């Protein structure tokens, strides 16, 4: 592939150009916290590069946005690969949030679909969901939205083929192996299983986002609707 700086085996990262001013680094292997902590390290190291003007950490990946197109994308890719291979994991002592969820009902309308996909009764999906502790891996998509690691693979459910058009902010969701709480009301392709009242973003606050990477989240059931 012409614009791929490196595309290869499972063991090596994938690095590709997204247009002329953005480069995407994708870690090899599974969605693990060990990998995510290495992404956080890489983010710190890339922050110090003078050519980088913005960074978007994703789920086991990192997008670098350059002020001007890099002279040599290959050199940047080499630097990234070297940093990935040598940097230690970055451990963040995040805050713990305990969040009450109203499971099921209209605002958790995809609970039945998740249960069907998992081959488990809805009550068990709920128990599995609030039985795990989650870590905020990255903030993105909408203002303040946190991508959560820690979803039990038994209830992982692919994103919907047809997104909901108007999912309310505060919807507790599952998208593939990722868990989340929707930050804004709007179209959303993730599966809704419940609802919570918290506000994830306030532009007048500093910082404006409630969650930061490394924060931990525990859900507990406030109510369960059939």
């Amino acid at each position, binding site marked *: *592939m*012409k*614009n*791929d700086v490196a*595309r290869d085996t499972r063991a090596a990262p*994938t690095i*590709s*150009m*997204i*247009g*002329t*001013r*953005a480069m*995407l680094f*994708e870690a090899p292997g599974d*969605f693990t916290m060990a990998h995510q902590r290495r992404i956080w390290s890489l983010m710190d190291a890339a922050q110090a590069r003078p050519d980088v*003007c*913005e*960074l*978007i*950490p*994703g*789920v*086991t*990946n*990192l*997008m670098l*946005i350059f002020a001007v*197109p890099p002279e040599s*994308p290959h050199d940047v890719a080499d630097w990234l690969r070297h940093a990935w291979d040598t940097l230690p994991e970055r451990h963040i002592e995040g805050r713990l949030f305990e969040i009450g969820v109203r499971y099921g009902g209209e605002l958790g309308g995809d609970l039945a679909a998740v249960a069907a996909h998992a081959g488990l009764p809805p009550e068990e999906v709920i128990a599995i969901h609030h039985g795990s502790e989650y870590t905020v891996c*990255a*903030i*993105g*998509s*909408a*203002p*303040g*939205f946190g*991508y959560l690691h820690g979803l039990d693979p038994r209830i992982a459910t*692919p*994103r919907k*083929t047809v997104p909901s058009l108007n999912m309310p902010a505060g919807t507790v969701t599952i*998208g*593939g*192996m*990722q868990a989340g709480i929707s*930050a*804004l009301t*709007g179209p959303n*392709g993730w599966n809704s299983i419940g609802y919570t009242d918290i506000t994830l*973003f306030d*532009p007048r606050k500093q*910082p*404006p*986002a409630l969650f930061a990477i490394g924060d931990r989240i525990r859900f507990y059931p406030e109510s369960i609707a059939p």
Partner: protein
Amino acid sequence: MTILETSALNTVQDLGRPGYRNLGVGTSGVMDALALRVGNILLGNKIDDACIELQTYPFVLRLDAPASLVVTGIDADIEIDGRAILPWMVETVAAGQVLRVGAPRTGARGYICIAGGIEVPVVLGSRSTQLRGGFGGLDGRPLEAGDTLKTTGTTLDVAGYGALPPARVLDAVACGDDAKVIHLRAMPATDYELFTPESRRRLWDAAWRITPQSNRVGYRLSGAPLELRHRVELRSYGVIAGIVQVPPAGEPIVQLADANTVGGYPRIATVIEADLWRLAQARIGTRIRFHECSFAEGVAAMRPVDAYLDDLRMMVARYRASARCRAGIKSGDKA
């Protein structure tokens, strides 16, 4: 100034809100950054001063104080108190006069740029309206009739000069003779190879129609669906304007100014930065053709754009200096 008449989705925008994507805050900003840059250069503004971005017409406003302004981005019937003025030309308007911008003959998004820029509070580093987040611009919402906006600017001492529209100066990719097809250069992106060979070929060969489900967030294109060799469930990754994603139904979406910062659909290509303004000015129903380009070609494509803006800067400085000289205004005097 007071907005007298407007319809949906006209907002205050500047060049965007960089630096908060790591908190999920998209850049927003004008769809056609080239048109705003031209307006700001013509008016001697700072390059990132804010303007009014028009997407629906007619739009009518009254200047409550004298102002110098220019409308860029489109060709349309534009009037001041019923007197026709040209787009891309600087005009000085007296207090109480009414500016009316009609539906465009060419282009889609018009930019009303005012000397001094539109003065709204800077939120998270920008004056751009973030519609989804409900902040920035004027109270985080589209403009409505009765709204008033301020500018810190004064009138310029010269007017009656302008810019050649970018569409006249910057060559599109030369191919085809159908003027209704917009040609865009794009680089293959991360997941290009995950698509079937036939789909990859069709990305470049098909004329994709811009559907009515197209807006500042992104343009949805219609055509025969693009197919993956096998289904993938990607981990969420960073998104920038120009990225072409393919949702499961197979019809591509080009993400634009109000795109989410992170997404999860396979990425087949990225429209290069030099051509994004063409997309911003493409109307619903028009067809677009993608042309494969390399990183080096994408970088080189910015040169004519930069040269156009540099030439304009020089021309404006010269014109204003000579006009002031003729008028006997000493340099350094304010109008």
